[in-house]
């Protein structure tokens, strides 16, 4: 099982490292979004007002689209998020001002949603990114279980940390990080696979329904009315009363508004409840006829298996959590990322004395590019958000491009430099980049002395200190043990 653990861990380790770090940042997806859009003030928005403003804007700018999806600004998010089908069939997305619905007053950036999408779509075309992420989740579950089997002295080793002893220290670090948050790691791997189950394990449903996936969706979401457009133009009824009714029906806030066939006589407005404070125990949906505003279907999820599924799903996304829960997820996520990084380094340390062929060299260099390079590339995304000109065309896409070009450069650099120097130098630059985040925030006059900006500054500085330490260790005496 040790053998399986080593190799299964290595093959998906790099991918999992990126997924884990992006996922950790996604815990604060809304907050990172707020930081990256300092033009929008957080967070007094009322979801009904914000939803109505978004619908109003979409009515003017996406009138011919067959469907709109809106996540209204709420007490966490300073902007509303709208996604719709553009004329070419592609999806278009914008972040809207909660009061006016206008995206122009807010800078063009993916914000925290970049990390959220990267976490499970890996910037790959649908469905390959999601399938790959799902496979990685299963492989992580496998690596965790084989890791537990391989690790016989489970509790004794927990109290053991031998610092400065090369391979032994890496193993101890790997073990401590794994054991301390083991329930979290197991939970996040299994629920992660589950969130992508419709792609990686749909076979129970598809066999029972004999391949009729539309019928599956109908049974899973009974209140989602899916009726074809009648191609008779009809104005949408006022949206605010519908949202108000939905809120009243849920007894909690609105999470999502879906409008099918807007501007058509067959328009449908479906509203989904938020998950605040309850871990997806009761997912509620209410649908209205778009032209009359009358409710036509409503559903409160009470089916036990579906509630279990929703519970596990919500456990992964942590949307139910209050601030403390989110910080716990963040810390556990960082531990998971570090655990994967330590495991990857351990793989090379364990084999350093033996064969050092091409395979070893590739692993060593990829380790540098991923373990030291990913945090640097992510930090660069934060910096690009502040430093790129505000009115740059395709600004959001440019931010992403800056990050990936830098990542590519890091990979080439790591391949060409002597390994130890590459570790030290890239980690040093990462530390500098993290420290530069609050600095650029200050210089570009985006900084406000509120909790959000101060927290981002503190976290960035703490990470910078951590990377300085790591760079010094990597450049210090080689403990080959």
């Amino acid at each position, binding site marked *: 099982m040790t053998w399986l653990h080593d190799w299964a861990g290595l093959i998906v380790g790099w991918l999992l490292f990126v997924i884990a770090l992006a996922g950790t940042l996604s815990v604060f997806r809304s907050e990172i979004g707020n930081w990256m859009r300092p033009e929008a003030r957080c967070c007094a928005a009322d979801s009904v007002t914000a939803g109505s403003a978004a619908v109003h804007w979409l009515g003017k700018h996406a009138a011919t689209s067959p469907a709109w999806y809106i996540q209204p600004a709420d007490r966490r998010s300073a902007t509303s998020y709208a996604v719709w089908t553009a004329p070419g069939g592609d999806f278009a997305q914008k972040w809207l001002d909660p009061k006016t619905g206008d995206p122009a007053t807010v800078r063009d950036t993916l914000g925290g949603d970049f990390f959220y999408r990267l976490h499970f779509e890996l910037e790959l075309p649908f469905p390959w990114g999601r399938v790959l992420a799902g496979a990685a989740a299963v492989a992580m579950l496998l690596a965790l279980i084989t890791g537990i089997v391989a690790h016989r002295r489970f509790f004794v080793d927990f109290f053991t940390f031998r610092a400065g002893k090369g391979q032994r220290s890496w193993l101890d670090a790997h073990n401590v990080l794994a054991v301390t948050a083991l329930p979290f790691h197991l939970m996040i791997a299994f629920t992660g696979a589950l969130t992508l189950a419709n792609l990686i394990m749909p076979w*129970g*449903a598809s*066999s*029972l329904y004999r391949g009729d996936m539309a019928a599956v969706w109908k049974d899973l979401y009974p209140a989602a009315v899916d009726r074809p457009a009648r191609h008779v133009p009809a104005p949408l009824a006022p949206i605010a009363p519908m949202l108000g009714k939905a809120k009243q029906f849920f007894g909690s806030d609105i999470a999502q508004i879906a409008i099918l066939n807007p501007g058509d006589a067959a328009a449908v407005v479906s509203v989904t409840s938020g998950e605040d404070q309850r871990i997806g125990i009761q997912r509620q949906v209410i649908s209205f006829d778009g032209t009359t505003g009358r409710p036509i279907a409503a559903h409160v999820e009470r089916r036990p*298996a579906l509630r279990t599924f929703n519970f596990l799903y919500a456990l992964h996304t942590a949307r139910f959590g209050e601030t403390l829960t989110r910080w716990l997820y963040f810390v556990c996520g960082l531990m998971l990322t570090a655990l994967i990084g330590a495991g990857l380094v351990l793989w090379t340390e364990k084999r350093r004395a033996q064969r050092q062929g091409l395979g070893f060299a590739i692993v060593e260099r990829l380790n540098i590019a991923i373990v030291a390079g990913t945090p640097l590339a992510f930090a660069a995304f934060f910096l690009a958000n502040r430093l790129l000109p505000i009115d740059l065309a395709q600004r959001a896409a440019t931010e992403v491009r800056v990050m990936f070009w830098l990542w590519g450069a890091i990979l080439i650099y790591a391949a060409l430099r002597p390994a130890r120097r590459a570790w030290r130098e890239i980690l040093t630059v990462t530390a500098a980049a993290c420290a530069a985040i609050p600095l650029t925030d200050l210089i570009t006059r985006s900084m406000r002395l509120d909790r959000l900006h101060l927290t981002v500054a503190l976290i960035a500085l703490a990470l910078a200190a951590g990377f300085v330490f790591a760079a010094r260790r990597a450049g210090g005496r080689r403990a080959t043990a």
Partner: protein
Amino acid sequence: MRNARPISARYRLAVLSRSVAAVAGGYGVSVLLAVAVAWTMPLSREEASIVATMIALLGLPIVMMACFYARTAFRAWIGLAIAASLLAGLAFAAGWRP
């Protein structure tokens, strides 16, 4: 498994065989597990589908591990074949037709 002895082609082949058994065979068996659970659960169709998915995703890493735990690669394949036919038989008895 990583010692001074040179790694023989036979050993490499056995590892490859096990890996294919674990990834492809393991996935195949867990698909059949999903189908068998979906068809035998005394629940509504959508409920049975969800339960089947959850159980199959738990089963997948276990089947994969079993492929590496088996004494030889050949035994791993035999085990997969037995599990697959049992699950397929169970699903078939419950009304599933491929």
